[in-house]
């Protein structure tokens, strides 16, 4: 028996799907993780542990295991993506007006003066080998945004799995970043590919199935807002400090973990034309949607059912 629960947390939609387990217990486990994540590394609550690190002084500061793990994930994402996904975009995010929960900023309409500058770079953040202290160069602000969301999905799925039947399984989606654990339903976990994670799963579009790991999508088409005549989105180009101008509007990647799927999806948008070679080198199954709607599939990503049928007809 499959049970599905939906609610909102961390400023995005949460979906929990439980196969053979008590959904209420699984939800409590997920909510516990998301609450700890919010208190550890939210950029939008002044009492979070991350915000307590600001302003950076250049001195070593202690961090909790969760924040340490999140910063480690951010640094690893930056290293593996050659800096395309960088956790030092905090100030750039504020510069483009993304300084509060998205629901509140998209209702603002006043113009802003954009003063863009290249971001400081992940090398300005040092994490101790035991991940219990961090040193941040003065002036640098950390945003764990996409990587942090992927990590949260992984941790939530791990926690939820601990509540279900040993033969069961769980799917956790945080704003379209999906982690699955345990035994998949017959035929696998079916995932609709969409531009907007709020699209209903029974809507039209390509559907793929995964049994293990994770799948995540980054897109410039959804988290957009306008300030005066300026339209901006939340994916930052580290070279300019402004919203990236990418040939891809949406990138979806499957990986062993959600934090890595999210890292690769975000990197693909930022890397632009170089993304295809990078994803192939990383051996990551991926689906890129160009600005004109054309689709590039990489690393064994399957064609939709209709095209596959046509190819064998």
């Amino acid at each position, binding site marked *: 028996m499959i049970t599905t629960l939906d609610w909102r947390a961390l400023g995005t939609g949460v979906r929990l799907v439980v196969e053979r387990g008590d959904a209420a217990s699984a939800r409590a486990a997920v909510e516990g993780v998301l609450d700890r994540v919010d208190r550890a590394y939210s950029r939008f609550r002044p009492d979070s542990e991350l915000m307590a690190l600001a302003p950076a002084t250049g001195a070593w500061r202690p961090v909790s295991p969760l924040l340490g793990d999140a910063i480690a994930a951010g640094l690893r994402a930056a290293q593996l993506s050659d800096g395309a996904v960088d956790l030092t975009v905090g100030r750039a995010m504020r510069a483009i007006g993304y300084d509060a929960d998205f629901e509140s900023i998209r209702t603002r309409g006043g113009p802003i003066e954009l003063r863009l500058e290249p971001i400081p770079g992940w090398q300005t953040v040092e994490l101790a080998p035991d991940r219990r202290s961090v040193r941040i160069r003065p002036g640098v602000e950390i945003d764990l945004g996409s990587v942090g969301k992927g990590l949260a999905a992984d941790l939530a799925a791990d926690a939820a799995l601990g509540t279900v039947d040993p033969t069961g399984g769980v799917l956790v989606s945080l*704003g379209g970043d999906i982690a699955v654990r345990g035994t998949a339903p017959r035929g696998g976990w079916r995932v609709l590919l969409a531009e907007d994670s709020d699209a209903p799963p029974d809507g039209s579009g390509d559907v793929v199935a*995964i049994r293990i790991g994770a799948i995540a999508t980054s897109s*410039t088409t959804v988290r957009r807002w306008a300030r005066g005549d300026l339209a901006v989105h939340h994916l930052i180009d580290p070279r300019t400090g402004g919203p990236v101008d990418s040939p891809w509007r949406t990138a979806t990647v499957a990986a062993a973990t959600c934090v890595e799927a999210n890292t690769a999806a975000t990197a693909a948008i930022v890397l632009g034309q170089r993304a295809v070679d990078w994803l192939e080198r990383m051996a990551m199954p991926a689906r890129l949607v160009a600005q004109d709607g054309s689709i590039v599939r990489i690393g064994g990503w399957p064609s939709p059912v209709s095209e596959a049928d046509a190819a064998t007809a």
Partner: protein
Amino acid sequence: MAGVVAVGAFGAIAAATYDGSTSSEGTLTATLTTDATTTTSTGSTSTTTSGSSSTSTATDSTATSGSSGLSTTTAPTTTSGSAHATTGGS
């Protein structure tokens, strides 16, 4: 008794070593390696024996791509029907 054995497990080939000097006690450690087209999976299993009892621990570590550093997985399969969830921008 020390030696090297090879067994098949999880579709992989395991190279195993046994560090015990007697037949009744020791630790057997095996490292599993699978080279697929795009993925290398590793894991290990350890069996400790004492007298007539033994304890086995198997660890299937996260699949990692050969040199990239990002952990890969098998590509999704195409399917149809109502989905369990939607992936997309948010």
